[in-house]
């Protein structure tokens, strides 16, 4: 029989460098999960991606055991890195903060494919381009 699920918690954590500070400690603690143990396991599983933000989805069961899966880094995080900017634009229509090229767009789309609701790479590129637009990051030599 499948174990009874108590909660599903999603967090975006630093790969290989998560700590028990918020959000981990309070979010998992309230469900009776030992966050020292969770952090050790998350860091061990994400160490090879250190430097990225790796979202995770933690399922807590009624017996307070848990399992988790990791996802691809947030699109905005990948775009910021590709464009070499600290943050997105506050007013993306008027103020552009950076630019990437079509090759970078394709690369990000490829990384994000498993987590996107896209049938092919072209569809994935369109979704990523939408996020870029909302951050004030333009894409050279590419027309949506």
């Amino acid at each position, binding site marked *: 029989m499948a174990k*009874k*699920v*108590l*909660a*599903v*918690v*999603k*967090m*975006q954590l*630093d790969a290989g460098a998560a700590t*028990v*500070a*918020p*959000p981990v*400690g*309070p*979010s998992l*603690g*309230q469900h*009776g*999960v*030992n*966050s*020292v*143990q969770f952090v*050790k*396991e998350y860091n*061990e*599983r994400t*160490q090879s991606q250190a430097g990225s*933000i790796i979202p995770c989805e933690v399922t807590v069961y009624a*017996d*307070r*055991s848990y399992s988790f899966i990791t996802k691809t880094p947030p699109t*905005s995080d990948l775009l910021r890195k590709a464009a070499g900017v600290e*943050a997105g634009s506050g007013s993306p229509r008027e103020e552009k903060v950076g630019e990437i090229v079509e090759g970078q767009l394709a690369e990000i789309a490829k990384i994000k494919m498993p987590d996107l609701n896209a049938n092919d790479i072209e569809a994935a590129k369109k979704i990523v381009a939408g996020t870029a637009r909302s951050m004030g990051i333009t894409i050279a030599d590419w027309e949506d």
Partner: protein
Amino acid sequence: MGERWLAIDVVVEEDEVDDVQAVMARWAGGAVAVEQMIDAAALDDFVPDGRCRLTAYLRDGAELPVTKYQLFNALWMLGGGGSAGLRKPGERWTEESEWMEQWKRFYRPLAIGRVGIVPAWDESEIPGAYVVVSLDPGQAFGTGLHVSTRQALLALQQCGVEGRRVLDLGTGSGILAIAAAGLGAAAVVGLDTDARAVDAARENVTANDQEARIELGVGTLGEPGVEQYLSQPFDIVVANIVAAVHCELALHYPVPIALGGHLILGGIVDERADLVTAAMAELPLALAERIDEERWVNLVYTRTP
């Protein structure tokens, strides 16, 4: 100890989560959690109701009122076209001492082979057949709940520790060291590079009346300052750490182990097991057993000439 954080909660529809999360992450330095809301009517099943609760955690301090104002303002702006929930976020204080303790309410005695692990605050009667380890792990790793601890403890029992000398590297809460002593080891040395873990282990050793047989120290193999603990060879070395540390320590592992003695390596996630076996390949250690369980791997080696 005792840090205080203000938790700001909003409940929104699933399609609003990304935008709200981005705003919260900006003001809370990434300290944001998203939790699926469940249908309260479905008592026995986990049925998401299509909404999510997002929580941003803001650290208490001089900047808190400003950060909170900016966050509320940004949420209000988002709320213009979205959920009413964004216009009146919930607020509650959460304290480190509280959230680090909560899991303890669900920590119950558990049996691992012949060893019974019992929370220090639990008064359950444990059947006499078990070697009892009373434990308060504090912030240290090693509750017995984790599969890697269970694997290492079972491997210790399989190797047979009675009358033997045991070295426990990365002792954490001291769980393996205390269990080894309880199972009849002649002498146990527990080392950890984290002084706080050694403090936690020391308290547990005292609570279990094992000071006479367990020696604890800060450090690890290959570091100055630990020679005093390693003057005599060990029959069993158990290291429940992580793959990367096993690889770093590989060359040092065979040194303290007596010929024919055992090395138990735990805490290895399955995708990194090959790295560890490769690091051990050229050393005077023969792989005796490999156990795979719930994506964790435990390796037992025998010391060869």
